[in-house]
């Protein structure tokens, strides 16, 4: 199997890009990745384009976005397909790109993920995202992803002693990182006084889905990210401006579509299995990982995922957050980009964005104040549905 590396990265600033066309936003991130790799003029030599997007048909009234983006980049006749796997679409596209290169079918693959969510109202965006739930038993009941986030959080609190203040501490930590990230949606200071301890905290940090509050929930974002994958063992690998960051492991797993059908709804089996497979593929263990990007659509998920992937004992991750172990200078920095909470969550783009952050950190290109010291291996977990389809990626600085 060929070794697969990332030689180019691109990223738009997440936030409100609703006045722009989705194909333009995707093409902008793709152009950045091609320029980063020094391959813009050679883009028609790319063997495959994969575009990750969850819901452009519903959110933008635009389908066939892979065709639209390729045309916007003047890349015809390069083959291009869409990858849709809910909020895990991005990492799924990276995984499929990896498979194309590793199998020998392609030497160079461009993976772009993105979403424009703010063309519609927040109510409609919430509804569209909820369509990933089981129609009869969840969506029809009126349930939403924040609803499941709230129920999961309550179970975790009652079993392990997590408090709302612990969730606020995690939000403060992620905003501390996001404010330094030029691509982050919410580049604003967030203090524990403002969102938990102060007299106005109940107003500033209102409930979304009890016990989850606004600062425990990611924003609705627009944006795109892109990576250029290359066969590191091919002569073509020498054509690129940047040294490849190797994809050491990539794997995914599924869990029951209906959350209520899980024997223990607090166990995120798909996360654990995807991570185990990625560790096995890379020959690494959780102790080898220098930092991680974990899918904190709700703050509780960063904690629960960090336990499932083996960074912390089950039910103990919030104690690590209290001690600052997941901060930039901690033992295991998590969500150095600001995470979904501060960097934002354009659903189809998030998985690619996480991998871009792995590359930025491993190259030593993160902004001052949020660069992890001499990282060797970075891990990302992209969480689809409410944990029913999860992709884990491990990148290495060789």
């Amino acid at each position, binding site marked *: 199997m060929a070794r697969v590396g990332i030689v180019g990265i691109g990223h738009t600033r997440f936030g409100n890009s609703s006045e722009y066309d989705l194909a333009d936003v995707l093409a902008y991130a793709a152009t950045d990745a091609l320029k980063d790799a020094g391959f813009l003029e050679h883009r028609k030599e790319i063997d495959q384009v994969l575009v990750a997007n969850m819901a452009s048909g519903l959110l933008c009234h635009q389908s066939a976005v892979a065709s639209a983006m390729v045309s916007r980049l003047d890349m015809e006749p390069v083959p291009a397909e869409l990858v849709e796997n809910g909020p895990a679409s991005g990492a799924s596209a990276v995984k499929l790109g990896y498979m194309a290169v590793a199998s020998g079918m392609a030497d160079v693959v461009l993976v772009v993920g993105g979403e424009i969510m703010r063309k519609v109202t927040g109510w409609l965006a919430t509804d569209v995202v909820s369509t990933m739930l089981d129609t009869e038993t969840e969506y029809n*009941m009126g349930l939403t992803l924040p609803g499941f986030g709230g129920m999961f959080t309550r179970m975790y609190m009652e079993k392990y002693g997590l408090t709302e203040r612990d969730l606020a501490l995690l939000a403060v930590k992620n905003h501390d990182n996001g404010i330094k990230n030029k691509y982050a949606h919410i580049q604003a200071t967030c203090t524990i006084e403002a969102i938990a301890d102060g007299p106005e905290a109940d107003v500033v940090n209102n409930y979304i889905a009890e016990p989850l509050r606004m600062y425990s929930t990611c924003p609705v974002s627009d944006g795109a990210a892109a990576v250029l994958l290359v066969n590191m063992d091919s002569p073509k690998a020498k054509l690129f401006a940047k040294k490849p960051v190797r994809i050491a492991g990539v794997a995914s797993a599924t869990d029951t579509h209906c959350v209520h059908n899980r024997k223990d709804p607090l166990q995120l089996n798909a996360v654990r299995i995807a991570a185990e497979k990625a560790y096995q593929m890379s020959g690494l263990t959780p102790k080898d990982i220098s930092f991680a990007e974990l899918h904190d659509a709700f703050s509780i998920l960063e904690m629960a995922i960090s336990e499932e992937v083996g960074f912390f004992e089950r039910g103990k991750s919030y104690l690590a957050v209290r001690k600052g172990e997941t901060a930039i200078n901690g033992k295991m920095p998590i969500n150095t980009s600001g995470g979904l909470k501060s960097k934002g969550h354009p659903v189809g783009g998030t998985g690619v964005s996480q991998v871009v952050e792995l590359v930025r950190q491993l190259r030593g290109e993160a902004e001052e104040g949020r660069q992890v010291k001499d990282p060797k291996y970075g891990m990302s977990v992209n969480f689809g549905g409410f944990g029913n389809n999860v992709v884990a990626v491990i990148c290495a600085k060789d």
Partner: protein
Amino acid sequence: MIDFSMYDVKAPKISGFRCEKCGSEYYPAPMICGKCNSRRDPVTGKGWVKFDLEGPCTLLTWTRVWNLPEGYTKKFLLFGIVQFENGLRASGRIELDEPKTGMKLTASVEESNERPGKPVKIFVFS
């Protein structure tokens, strides 16, 4: 909500499904029994028994959601996951002011026309 007590029509039901071959029970209906691999024919239902899923249940977790999606006009709604006495679980609405995890509830089924399109069946736990 539609009050069926006002009309001489059959109250809405939500079904659980039992595999006749091995007795395993499911909600929602699977295409293949996870225990004995029997296939369910969604048209004839042959080899599978449908039964009403309702009655006593225990609340496993709950939330009060304040950011409801398009179509809902209420300020908030309460949702929960319950476990029935036969071990099956379901998600649905809670109609109680102060739910507590572990409390005993009764599940019933109503039709909701809150969203555009055909009315849908929902669980109400009270």
